[in-house]
């Protein structure tokens, strides 16, 4: 049997396919199978880490759409997640079925995102970053002071999500729910990028004036980017709230926004795969450090305290090192690795 040498396409549709070679599709299929079997393969601890990763993936990919693809910096992403979390929580507490509540939370976040996205027409770069920072602070204030609906400083207690009478009350059940949501989010964003709208986002990011001359309605598309991005962030927030069964203002602070931003910088701006890498990397970083501290403390009992103090430093250092040595993120490194193996052993 003779395989094709390289890839060639005879239609645009073929070129736009996500996974062009049979090998890629096989790998993806195996990976999905592995994920589906994960609850049987890994212990409950790793499963809970996987759950957190799934939520982080949704948060990261949503911000990547706004910042990486459309070039609009947002420091209010944590708050948009919060709006989604509160929206979904308030709905389920009033008896709305979970899937609808999750969408309602997303819609609320989307609305908030669009409202705070309005300044993006006039503001660019650092000015927009500050405007979205204001969104973060204002929304946090609302979470804290609208005690009647958000529970104020006490927060809200929730039940595990129930879908058509099936309660996701274990980590394994939750994992499937989160996996499906994360996969759907990735599909939505990846598909959006292949459409006219996605190309308009990229045009705006690359140069707003050219985009406008080419006929892109800047305001509409920027708002759309804010809306879609905040919607997905809201879904991530709603899932997080129902996973921990608790919402409080503290969970959606500025640190959440920064950690989303760090994820896409480390993963790769503008890349869907990069969002996944970034989310996985940043979620595993503290766990990995804990593991190192735990292992070392067997020999040096005092070291765990020292390492613990180093942790925040390590986080910052990682970020700086990535910016210097891998500015295009893990996704770029992945591309290089793939290219290397594609030609192996005949690299030229």
């Amino acid at each position, binding site marked *: 049997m003779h395989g094709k040498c390289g890839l060639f396409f005879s239609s645009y549709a073929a070129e736009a396919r996500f996974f062009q070679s049979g090998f890629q599709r096989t790998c993806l299929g195996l990976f999905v199978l592995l994920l589906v079997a994960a609850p049987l393969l890994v*212990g409950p601890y790793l499963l809970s880490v996987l759950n957190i990763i799934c939520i982080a993936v949704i948060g990261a990919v949503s911000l990547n759409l706004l910042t990486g693809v459309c070039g609009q910096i947002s420091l209010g992403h944590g708050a948009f997640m919060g709006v989604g979390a509160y929206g979904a929580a308030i709905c389920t507490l009033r008896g709305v079925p979970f899937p609808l509540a999750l969408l309602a939370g997303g819609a609320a976040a989307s609305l908030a995102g669009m409202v705070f996205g309005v300044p993006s027409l006039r503001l660019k770069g650092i000015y927009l970053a500050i405007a979205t920072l204001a969104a973060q602070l204002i929304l946090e204030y609302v979470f804290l002071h609208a005690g009647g609906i958000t529970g104020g400083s006490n*927060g809200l207690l929730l039940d595990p999500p129930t879908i058509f009478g099936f309660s996701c009350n274990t980590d394994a059940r939750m994992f499937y729910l989160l996996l499906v949501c994360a996969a759907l989010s990735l599909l939505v964003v990846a598909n959006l990028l292949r459409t006219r709208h996605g190309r308009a986002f990229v045009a705006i990011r690359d140069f707003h004036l050219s985009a406008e001359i080419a006929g892109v309605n800047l305001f509409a598309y920027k708002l759309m980017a804010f809306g879609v991005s905040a919607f997905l962030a809201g879904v991530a927030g709603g899932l997080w709230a129902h996973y921990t069964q608790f919402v409080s203002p503290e969970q959606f602070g500025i*640190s959440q926004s920064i950690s989303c931003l760090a994820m896409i910088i480390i993963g790769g701006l503008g890349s869907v795969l990069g969002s996944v890498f970034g989310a996985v990397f940043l979620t595993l970083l*503290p766990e990995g450090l804990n593991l190192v501290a735990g292992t070392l403390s067997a020999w040096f009992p005092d070291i765990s305290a020292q390492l613990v103090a180093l942790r*925040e430093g390590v986080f910052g250092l990682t970020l700086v090192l990535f910016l210097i040595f891998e500015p295009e993120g893990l996704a770029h490194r992945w591309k290089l690795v793939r290219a290397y193996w594609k030609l192996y052993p005949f690299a030229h």
Partner: protein
Amino acid sequence: MRTVMKTFLTLALCLALAAPALAETIKIGGLIDLSGPTSAVGRPYAEGLRAAAEYINAHGGVSGRQIEFLLQDTAYNPQQGLALYKKFATVDKVVAVQGFGTAVTEALVRFVAQDEIPNFSASYSAHLTDAAKAPYNFVIAADYSTQARAALKYFKDNWKESRAPRLALLYPNAPYGLAPIPAIKAYAKELGFELVGEENVDLKAIDATTQLLALKGKNPDYTWIGGTTPSTAVIMKDAKKLGMKTTFFVDIWGADESLVQLAGDAAEGAVSLQAAAVYGQDVPGMKAILEQTKNQPQMTHFIRGFASMMVMVEGMRQTLAKGPLTGKTLKETLETLRDYDPQGLTPKISFLPGDHRPNMSVFLYKIQNGKLTFLSAQTLERKAEWLGL
């Protein structure tokens, strides 16, 4: 061949018998903020827990069983706390958890209830004492609202003048600062205080003159400060600069031994609300602490951590006297605890089914000559309508 078999069998038997004996340790998880914004108080608290575990192990353990205290850092991050907790619950299979910060404790409320793992935390939010909402959460200090109410009662009882005492409130616009405010306002009104003003001072504030100038003209007799030691120090120093004459009273995390170092003279005369003894105080339990710390002074948070472990262990001891020790039986036993005295380290502790307020007491300390000096222990009535508020 026979002898070999015999040796093997004996060995196997020995191992089989020894295994449960080795497994007799009681595992307690520790989820404390050793790094992050609250680590300055988290570390001494964790040290206190650890010292208590060591002390108890060295003095015969819990009914002959040793404690294995697994301390982990949560960095005030609910995600991290959740992952660590899952590891405790599923891999290590701990009987109970010693927690710390509000963010993590609240994120775990539902999980500890489902897994039936009691969580002793240092998050004294009133709503965590309502066992209808948080059945597996325990604290060994009265909640923030109760502490503040008790202080108000003490001031009112010692008020000599005929006019109503004037009260002002300073607190950060954060969940932790806002939590006790409605309770303070309601009880102050009930006691006959005149609320003359309230201002927000951020936890990271470096200046509070604006807020204090607004209050200065109103001459409050008492001023509540909610916050942590850095923000409290800023307020006190600025108040001294402006020449304000008021008695500050500060919540449990806002005025400890480090405040004196941060605020210096400006802290003199302020009243600190605490729930545990200070180092070297003349109470029976201090002997164990002096012994364990080799006379190295520790913060009051250390002592509260020590006491938290003592209360948990007392619950375990009573549970083991009745039957097997699980999270569920421990919770049930704890709810029968009445007036347990951790040798004077904290006020006496009781937990009731449905009402996990440990007591209604607060220790008041006055800062004199740079030291926390015991002023009084104030106890309130256990009113049902205050539960969780």
